[in-house]
């Protein structure tokens, strides 16, 4: 009967409804806060990339240069002593941001150095191909804010700039380098210094200094989204210490007189410190490069000048460190430090293409055409062009042989520090071989983000087929689960090639070939764990290993469709030729056509019989 049915009274109904709504609302809030907490627990990632920083250019790796911020990171994290990158800039950046071999990513070399014969080959574009996905895209799609400020050098068209490659906010310099004090190209091959903000042309502020600017803008980006609690990925590719080597005067002053004893003494000092810090084995031997001059043969004036070149270089390193410290302090002050992982590395070894005699009249004339001077008094300041000579570059890479653009350890072995509470490092130093392609898989594992997956038999992301990552996460090493993550099996081999310079890493061994004029165009075999200075060639002593590694290198070459360089290829000359063509090609054609027209009319004039 209806009379026996309990019918809620209107007031009770209202109470029940309100209670239900409250419970539902509360549940939603609780669920939302749990979700937010889970989200906020995902670590922030700060990826810092120095440019052309040598193996022992920072204090944690044995340098006399004061780098307290990097030392603090090293103290709170793990130093990798056997970490390798590409031997020059853009290929490293391609591998760093994708975990894919640089050839397959389209960046076999910097675009400025690709010979015309190879410029139509997809592996030799010098710009990041669309067949790869960046770590920034993966993180952004997983809810991360993604920021990038600094040198990009992986493409300058709208579809290639970082704003189209997964970065939410960007200020990017698209060239191989640029002035650190103003918006000015550092090489005549560029018409201007090409800076872009969020994909649009950007004009630098008047008070620009590269390292300060990069950190200022990164902080600005981080703060702009701090309220929403989402984690961030910040990529800071510094211009330091790429040429032109420039630094504020107050930093330069600290290093005046420090390098008066010369490059050979510095190379020895750094070796001793590196040994003391456990960066290299006690028995590490070194060899002197054929490009290293005899310091004692220099005049007093030349010594004074060279010492200042190096002082400015050291000052630029310290200035970068100073600004990294500002970022760390900011994250501490805003409560984000404890949930942030820092990854610091260099893109390749020290740069040795600076002239041995920087005071030569021809060089000074050429610099003046670019609006630069290299006078002693103003060296490193605004309007000054400074660089390292091959001799000090060799000290910067101490105790390693070779430097940038070469596959010797000095070109490829660089510092790597991973720090921060979320990594829970079990060891402070790792001597295991690691490679630049390991960084992206490491970041993905640290953030719990899934890499591209196989669908319908092919690796796909965002609806398109993509290249597979070849790197391996460093987390097992960091957490002390394993001693090494690349073994001695064939599938553990890591190959590398740059314009004919070649290397293959397998276990503790490295097969290496360096092209002339610095190298001898011969294959050598070294145990780089025991002999990082590459002084004892084992190719004659361990023929089976040599042959095995040669076979593996050939497989690597075939797998990545590596092309031979044209006969007579010299990297620096190709940069000049390509630059001349790109910058002045139209003018050269105009000149030739004008000459043809004038010659034709002159011939007509001569045929006419004037009185």
């Amino acid at each position, binding site marked *: 009967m209806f009379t026996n049915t309990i019918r809620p009274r209107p007031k009770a109904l209202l109470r029940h409804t309100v209670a239900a709504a409250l419970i539902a609302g509360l549940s939603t809030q609780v669920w939302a806060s749990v979700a937010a907490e889970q989200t906020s627990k995902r670590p922030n990632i700060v990826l810092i990339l120095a440019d052309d920083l040598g193996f022992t250019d920072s204090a944690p790796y044995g340098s006399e240069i004061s780098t307290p911020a990097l030392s603090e990171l090293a103290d709170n994290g793990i130093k990798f002593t056997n970490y390798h990158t590409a031997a020059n800039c853009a290929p490293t950046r391609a591998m760093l941001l994708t975990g894919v071999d640089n050839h397959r990513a389209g960046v076999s070399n910097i675009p400025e150095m690709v010979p015309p014969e190879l410029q139509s080959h997809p592996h030799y574009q010098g710009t990041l191909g669309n067949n790869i996905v960046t770590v920034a895209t993966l993180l952004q799609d997983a809810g991360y804010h993604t920021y990038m400020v600094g040198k990009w050098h992986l493409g300058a068209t709208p579809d290639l700039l970082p704003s189209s490659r997964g970065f939410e906010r960007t200020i990017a310099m698209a060239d191989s380098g640029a002035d650190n004090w103003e918006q000015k190209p550092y090489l005549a091959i560029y018409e201007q210094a090409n800076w872009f903000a969020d994909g649009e042309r950007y004009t630098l502020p008047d008070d620009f200094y590269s390292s300060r600017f990069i950190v200022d803008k990164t902080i600005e980006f981080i703060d702009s989204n701090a309220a929403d609690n989402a984690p961030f990925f910040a990529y800071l590719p510094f211009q330091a210490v790429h040429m032109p080597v420039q630094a504020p005067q107050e930093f330069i002053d600290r290093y005046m007189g420090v390098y008066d004893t010369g490059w050979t003494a510095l190379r020895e000092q750094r070796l001793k410190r590196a040994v003391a810090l456990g960066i290299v084995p006690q028995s590490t031997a070194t060899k002197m490069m054929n490009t290293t001059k005899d310091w004692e043969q220099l005049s007093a004036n030349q010594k004074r000048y060279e010492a200042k070149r190096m002082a400015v270089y050291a000052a630029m390193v310290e200035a970068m460190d100073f600004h990294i410290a500002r970022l760390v302090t900011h994250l501490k002050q805003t409560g984000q430090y404890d949930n942030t992982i820092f990854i610091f590395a260099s893109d390749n070894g020290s740069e040795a293409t600076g002239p041995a005699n920087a005071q030569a009249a021809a060089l000074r004339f050429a610099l003046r055409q670019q609006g630069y001077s290299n006078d002693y008094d103003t060296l490193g300041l605004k309007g000054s062009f400074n660089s390292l000579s091959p001799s000090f570059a060799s000290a910067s890479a101490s105790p390693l042989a070779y430097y940038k653009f070469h596959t010797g350890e000095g070109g490829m072995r660089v510092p790597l520090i991973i720090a921060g509470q979320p990594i829970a490092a079990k060891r402070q130093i790792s001597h295991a071989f690691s490679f630049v392609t390991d960084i992206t898989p490491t970041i993905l594992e640290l953030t719990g983000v899934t890499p591209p997956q196989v669908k319908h038999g092919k690796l796909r992301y965002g609806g398109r087929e993509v290249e597979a990552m070849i790197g391996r996460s460093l987390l097992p090493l960091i957490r002390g689960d394993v001693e090494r993550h690349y073994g001695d099996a064939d599938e553990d081999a890591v190959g590398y090639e740059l314009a004919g310079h070649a290397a293959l890493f397998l276990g503790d061994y490295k097969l290496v070939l360096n092209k002339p004029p610095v190298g001898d165009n011969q294959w050598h075999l070294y145990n780089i764990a025991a002999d990082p200075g590459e002084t004892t060639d084992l190719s004659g002593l361990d023929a089976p290993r040599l042959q095995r590694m040669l076979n593996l290198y050939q497989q690597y070459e075939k797998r990545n469709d590596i092309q031979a360089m044209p006969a007579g290829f010299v990297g620096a000359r190709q940069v000049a030729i390509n630059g001349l063509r790109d910058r002045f090609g*139209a*003018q050269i*054609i*105009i*000149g030739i*056509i*004008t000459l043809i*027209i*004038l010659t034709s*009319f*002159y011939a*007509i*004039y001569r045929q*006419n*019989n*004037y*009185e």
Partner: protein
Amino acid sequence: MKNTLGSKILRAIVCIPAIIFIVTGLQFILDPAAAVKQFGMPLLDGVGRSSQIGDMAGFFLTCGLCVLIAVSTGKRVWFYPAAMLTSITAMGRILAWLLHDAALAINLIAPEIIFTALFLFAASRLPAPAAPAAPAAPSKAANQATSDAE
């Protein structure tokens, strides 16, 4: 007028603007982004770019080639198209300033007037090439042979 040193110098002088015009015309075809900067305009898109490159290249190449034809062949009438182009351009610039709020581009008008004057001067002063030598008078024997044949 003889082909004196003075006339040779005058030829060389008029060739200077001719070369500038030809280089500018070629620049509009081969490197328009750089060419437009000299004239205070952006590089247009679409049909605008087509007109910009085609018209400007046509103007400059015609101007320069007319002068070179005049100098090399001695046919002074070829100076007049070049003089007309530069003078009407200068006049157009002044009218654009007066009627359409354009800037008074003195730095462009002045050379155009100078070039016009130079071309007209050259047209009046440069020597014509010598007339080809008259054919030799036919001999009496030849005349007789022709008459016999007829």
